[in-house]
């Protein structure tokens, strides 16, 4: 088949070259149209079901809302896990599906299940499905500040001008608005006034409802026309609302204004925001699933640019620099592109120096863009974006792509040169065909072996798999495309370009110079085989011994130029207090010279799936343009500054790391210990013990109980007998309490296109003191006014901020981060410490977080590596003549390991998943080099009839010297800029990977060239074709 392909390509070389040109053009076009992002979509398909349950306490939310929702969705096919959080007034159930499921189908099935809940949830409560967003979710944070406008005006502009415009930007899926005062028309009831006028809360509610209700009026039909009726006249201002009649007695009207304060007021706040320590409104904008972050950001920028002048005229400033992941993507892709371009130029230089022939260099070079562009087209068609992973896959493929072309061109060139010196030269067609096929068989096997090497990367599970598999896919497409190019375009171009000109008889000067030295060196190695092999064995042994000293981390720290600081006070901390402390933290952070912007968000946005309480804040800390080292310094200074603040627990993360961590465990923490049990109080007690144990382990940072007890609450416990004595039924009393302290929305008032709710609620002054609650007078059906304390026990107690579930089981989680990055080691110590705690019956715990994910990834990697190893051996056993040669090929793998391990130790001793992928890539390259060398020996003996001895070994090695060094140099130089810039934005993952490849490549190439021939001479078995059976 290979012969047929190469022959067809040579025959129709014009067509092949034309097709190559078309591919080139289309590839460039695709590249321009491509979607760019930082990472592939790494979150598993999930459906988030937020349900607002105004006024309900966490335990009530858990029992009345969360449990029915969980019960409705647990049986859905493809569900991997269900977790939930029940906080005051909100239930959030997150359903995670298997990665193979269709996210849109999942949403539909969940929606169908939720529709069955109608009637089984408390009145007025209905679950929703949160909009689908990308893995990275937030594409921009926009802040509004003003010196002249009130916070209510800012919020109104955010809700009714900015939000509507930004939703029109293609790709925007969700906008959460924090801070400001949400405008409401409020009927603020004063119990004394109600008593004075003998009016009940129900009468006020009814009057307000009547005044703000809107009704349609239908139409009339005349013989000729249909005429629409429109009824108006409902209250349109607070003044009109105040004039609404509550009661008419003896021709006198009692109005809402007489019994309550009717005014525009602020809805009870769930969240607050500040920018640069000034009160503000902040919009967190999320992108749709699969949207292109850069395009969405561009669209948002255009929309904001259009709005800016009008808002500036109103004295409102828009700050869109608070948080822009696009900036990181830009920097990351720019850095990566620079690395690729610099690498590409170095590759060209190497090719020219080694081939010393413009035509051969040009043919080899054409393979690079053709293969990489073909791979780009294919991954785009598969729905992948161009991100650090896919670009990384292209970067590491350059070496093999060049190698494919170089082997071919170099062999064709050599054979043509030899052909010319023959007395009766064969046809050029035949020479090129034979020369191509001569090396192709080994190259095909080598390529498939490398694909097998990448199998573990492709089959990695969880987030790691979703992040790294696009790298593997891209790499495989690139080398397959390269194989195709080497079978078609390279022979065609060689046929067209090489026979015409002068063919240099001698090797290029650099190759000649290298060969001279190499042969002398190889001779010396051959003279001292025992010593060399002993040294190599010692090196390998030392490397294996060093493995246990390597630490592990799931992902390296990303230098996004942006940090998210979490500030958590005790539950129950008010928004005002969170903002007061937050302002001081912001001011302190702004004193750090590296910090550009600081924005704080406390609490949560309305109608969102975020369950942060008023005690927790997030600060967007945006840095100036910094190098990797400066970013580390900035982080250290931020940590140092935060450590000076008492009264809150702080944690610092980069945004992407945080998102990845959130997806892994639902919480932001490298290590998460989940404690399960039926009794919430018992769980709290055990969580506290576990937190204590974790905090004592060296390296523990930011130990937090995720839903700590201690939320202050006032219990209103009805006494049914007393309620009955006064003629109340329980619900009447509870309704009044809810209206008074939680507010009840009774209607809406329209202002142009803006709609504002009308709410009845207690006067703000009456809602400030715990002591006033029990004095709330409630009017009985008989017209008696009875203070709440006559009907219920009103007492202060302590509740919990959140009730969490995992898999519909009650859970309390303790999270912590780990100093030094050795999470695996930390978890091992944590397991030992926690095992010493005697847990009560029915309580058990599990470890989760990035640590668990890392362990799972490594387990998967182990199993799949073994499978891939077996596959490779089977494949090699087909191509190699005997097991000895197969062993020789495999012997090169430990050689590669040596350099990789030593360089990993030299650069910090931490192995991230990127480093492990580096090892995999390295094994692939090394395997290929050794296959090529051993199969070249087989070729020399079998095809050219040479006898297997030192001279043949030397000749074979020196003939492979040039391609091997070229491949190593091309790969090495291609990755060098990545390795040198390791840690810079965009290179955090590929940097360590490139370093491992460089280190391994150095030892593997050296040993491949120096030790493998010696080994082959002693232990290889190469026999002429006739001897084989």
């Amino acid at each position, binding site marked *: 088949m290979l012969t047929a392909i190469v022959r067809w390509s040579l025959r129709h070389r014009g067509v092949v070259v034309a097709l190559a040109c078309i591919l080139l053009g289309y590839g460039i076009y695709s590249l321009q149209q491509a979607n760019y992002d930082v990472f592939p979509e790494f979150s598993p398909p999930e459906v988030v079901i937020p349900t607002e349950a105004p006024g309900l306490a966490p335990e009530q939310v858990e029992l009345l809302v969360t449990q029915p929702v969980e019960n409705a969705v647990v049986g859905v096919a493809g569900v991997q896990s269900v977790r939930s959080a029940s906080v005051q007034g909100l239930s959030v159930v997150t359903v995670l599906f298997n990665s193979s499921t269709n996210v849109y189908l999942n949403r539909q099935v969940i929606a169908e299940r939720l529709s069955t809940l109608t009637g089984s949830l408390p009145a007025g409560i209905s679950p929703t499905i949160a909009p689908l967003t990308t893995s990275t979710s937030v594409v921009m944070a926009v802040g509004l500040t003003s010196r002249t406008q009130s916070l209510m005006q800012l919020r109104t502009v955010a809700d009714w001008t900015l939000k509507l415009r930004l939703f029109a930007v293609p790709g925007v899926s969700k906008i959460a608005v924090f801070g400001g005062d949400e405008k409401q028309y409020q009927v603020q009831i004063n119990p004394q006034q109600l008593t004075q006028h003998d009016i009940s809360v129900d009468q006020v509610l009814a009057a307000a409802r009547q005044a703000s209700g809107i009704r349609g009026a239908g139409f009339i039909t005349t013989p000729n026309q249909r005429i629409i009726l429109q009824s108006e006249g409902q209250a349109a201002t607070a003044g009109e609302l105040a004039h609404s009649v509550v009661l008419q007695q003896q021709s006198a009207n009692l109005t809402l204004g007489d019994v309550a304060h009717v005014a525009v007021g602020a809805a009870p706040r769930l969240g607050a925001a500040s920018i640069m320590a000034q009160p503000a409104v902040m919009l967190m904008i999320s992108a749709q699933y699969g949207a292109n972050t850069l395009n969405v950001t561009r669209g948002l920028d255009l929309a904001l640019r259009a709005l800016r002048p009008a808002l500036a005229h109103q004295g409102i400033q828009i700050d869109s620099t608070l948080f822009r992941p696009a900036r990181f993507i830009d920097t990351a892709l720019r850095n990566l592109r620079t690395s690729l371009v610099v690498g590409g130029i170095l590759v060209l230089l190497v090719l020219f120096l080694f081939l010393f022939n413009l035509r051969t260099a040009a043919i080899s070079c054409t393979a690079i863009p053709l293969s990489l562009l073909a791979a780009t087209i294919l991954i785009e068609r598969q729905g992948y974006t161009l991100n650090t992973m896919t670009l990384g896959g292209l970067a590491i493929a350059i070496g093999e792509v060049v190698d494919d072309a170089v082997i071919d061109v170099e062999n064709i060139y050599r054979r043509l040169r030899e052909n010319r010196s023959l007395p009766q030269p064969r046809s050029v067609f035949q020479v090129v065909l034979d020369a191509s096929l001569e090396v192709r068989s080994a190259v095909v096997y080598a390529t498939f072996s490398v694909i097998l090497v990448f199998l573990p990367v492709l089959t990695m599970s969880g987030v790691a798999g979703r992040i790294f598999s696009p790298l593997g896919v891209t790499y495989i497409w690139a080398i397959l495309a390269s194989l195709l190019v080497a079978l078609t375009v390279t022979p065609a171009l060689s046929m067209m370009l090489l026979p015409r000109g002068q063919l240099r008889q001698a090797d290029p000067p650099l190759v000649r110079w290298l060969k001279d030295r190499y042969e002398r060196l190889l001779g010396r190695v051959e003279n001292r085989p025992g010593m060399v092999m002993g040294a190599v064995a010692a090196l390998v042994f030392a490397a294996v011994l060093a493995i246990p000293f390597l630490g592990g981390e799931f992902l390296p720290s990303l230098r996004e130029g942006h940090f998210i600081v979490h500030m958590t006070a005790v539950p129950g901390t008010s928004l005002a207090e969170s903002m007061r402390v937050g302002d001081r933290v912001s001011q302190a952070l702004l004193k750090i010279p590296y910090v550009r912007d600081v924005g704080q968000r406390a609490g949560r946005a309305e109608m969102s799936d975020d369950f942060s309480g008023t005690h927790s804040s997030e600060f967007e800390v945006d840095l100036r343009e910094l190098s990797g080292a400066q970013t580390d310094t900035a982080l250290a200074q931020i940590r140092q500054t935060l450590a000076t603040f008492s*009264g809150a627990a702080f944690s610092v993360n980069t945004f992407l790391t945080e998102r990845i961590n959130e997806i892994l465990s639902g919480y932001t923490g490298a290590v998460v210990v989940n404690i399960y049990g039926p009794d919430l109080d018992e769980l709290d007690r055990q969580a506290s013990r576990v*937190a204590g144990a974790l905090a004592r382990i060296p390296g523990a940072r930011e130990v937090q109980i995720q839903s700590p007890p201690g939320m202050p609450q006032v219990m209103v416990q009805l006494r049914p007998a007393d309620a009955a004595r006064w003629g109340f039924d329980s619900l009447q009393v509870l309704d009044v309490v809810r209206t008074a302290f939680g507010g009840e929305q009774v209607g809406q008032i329209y202002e142009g296109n803006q709609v504002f709710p009308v709410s009845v609620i207690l006067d703000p002054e009456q809602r400030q003191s715990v002591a006033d609650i029990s004095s709330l007078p409630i009017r009985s059906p008989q017209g008696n006014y009875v203070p709440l304390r006559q009907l219920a026990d009103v007492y202060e107690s302590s509740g919990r901020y959140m009730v969490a579930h995992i898999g519909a089981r009650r859970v309390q989680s303790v999270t912590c981060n780990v100093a030094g990055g050795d999470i695996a080691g930390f978890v091992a110590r944590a397991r030992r410490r926690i095992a010493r705690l005697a847990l009560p019956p029915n309580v058990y715990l599990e470890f989760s977080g990035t640590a668990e994910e890392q362990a799972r990834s490594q387990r998967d990697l182990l199993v799949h590596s073994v499978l891939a190893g077996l596959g490779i051996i089977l494949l090699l056993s087909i191509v190699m003549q005997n097991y000895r040669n197969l062993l020789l090929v*495999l012997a090169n793998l430990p050689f590669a390991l040596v350099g990789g391990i030593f360089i990993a130790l030299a650069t910090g001793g931490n192995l991230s998943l990127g480093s492990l992928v580096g090892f995999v890539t390295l094994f692939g390259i090394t395997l290929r080099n050794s296959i090529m060398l051993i199969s070249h020996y087989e070729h020399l003996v079998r095809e050219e009839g040479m006898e297997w001895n030192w001279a043949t070994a030397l000749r074979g090695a020196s003939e492979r010297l040039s391609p091997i060094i070229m491949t190593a140099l091309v790969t090495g130089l291609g990755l060098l800029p990545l390795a040198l810039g390791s840690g810079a934005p965009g290179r955090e993952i590929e940097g360590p990977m490139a370093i491992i490849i460089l280190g391994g490549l150095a030892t593997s190439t050296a040993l491949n060239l120096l030790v493998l021939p010696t080994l082959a001479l002693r232990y290889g078995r190469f026999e002429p074709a006739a001897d084989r059976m």
Partner: protein
Amino acid sequence: MIKSVKYLVALLIALAAVSAIAVVLTAAHRPDADDQDEDEAVKAPSRVVVQNGQTVIRLDEEAQAREGIRVAPVAQTSMRSELRGTAVLLPVNDLVTARDSYVAARAKLQRDQQDLSLARNQAERTRALYQQNQNMSLQAMQSTDAAYRNAQAQFAADEQDARLQLDAVRQRWGAVVTNWISGDSPALEAVLAQRSFLVQVILPPGEAATKPAKLSLTLPANKLVPARLVSSLPLVNPQIQGISYLYLASRAPGMAADMNLSVLIPVGRPLAGTVVPEDAIVWWQGKAWAYQQTSPSSFTRREVPTANPVSGGYFVPGKTFAPTTKLVTAGAQALLSEEFRSHIQQED
């Protein structure tokens, strides 16, 4: 061939073993590196210490300034507990009627008295003339005697009527107002002339209090109007089933009959003590607490009794908080958070 297969199998096992060992070792990492990690661990500065069994938060003055923690001495005061009641400006139409009726009854009684006196004199004179030799006829004597007894009966009936008028007033308004009517009190005149208002002060249902001699009514816009005790009221308000007292308040702008006002009613004896402002209070585990500054750089949490809520805080009677006590009035929640954070990290 068999030999080759054997070698291949052996090779496969060896390779699998090496791969497994290498990857497992990579995954396992260091067995224990506590000593090495010790230097890397960044511990948050410990600000919470336990001294003599009491938890103390240490925060130097610089940190207090940075975090906006402010302290203020507790306010010493003498105070009584207060109940918030309802005050109704009573319409006095029935009082006017009652007084008019009573005045009419009294006038009638006076007339009856004169008639009685006249009838008695007439009867005595006629009886004397009759007894002096029957200078008057028996029939005339019997007539005047009958007229006298009639006048007597009329007086008794009208006297009873006047008493009934007062009894009715007493039932509705109490003894003092009855006395005002019977005694033509200037206070009554002021009420009837609307220079003063009679005010029904109603305690919340289920509450009892010693009626204070003076209190202040709260008019809309929080204007206070003094009122003085008149008497207990024998009736309760059907809507607010609490004990009622009658007070007299001078007329102030905005006051009109039938108006309902709120009133703070002092309860119990005045006590010396301190007021802990609401700003200093943090609720924790069902109790109210305040942070006391025990030295310039240390704070301890103290429970605040909440039995006596007053406007803007809680009154703590006695010497629970000494006059020199300084409480944290800004940043108390931050101190609570700090105490709780340390608690998590130090507990095992």
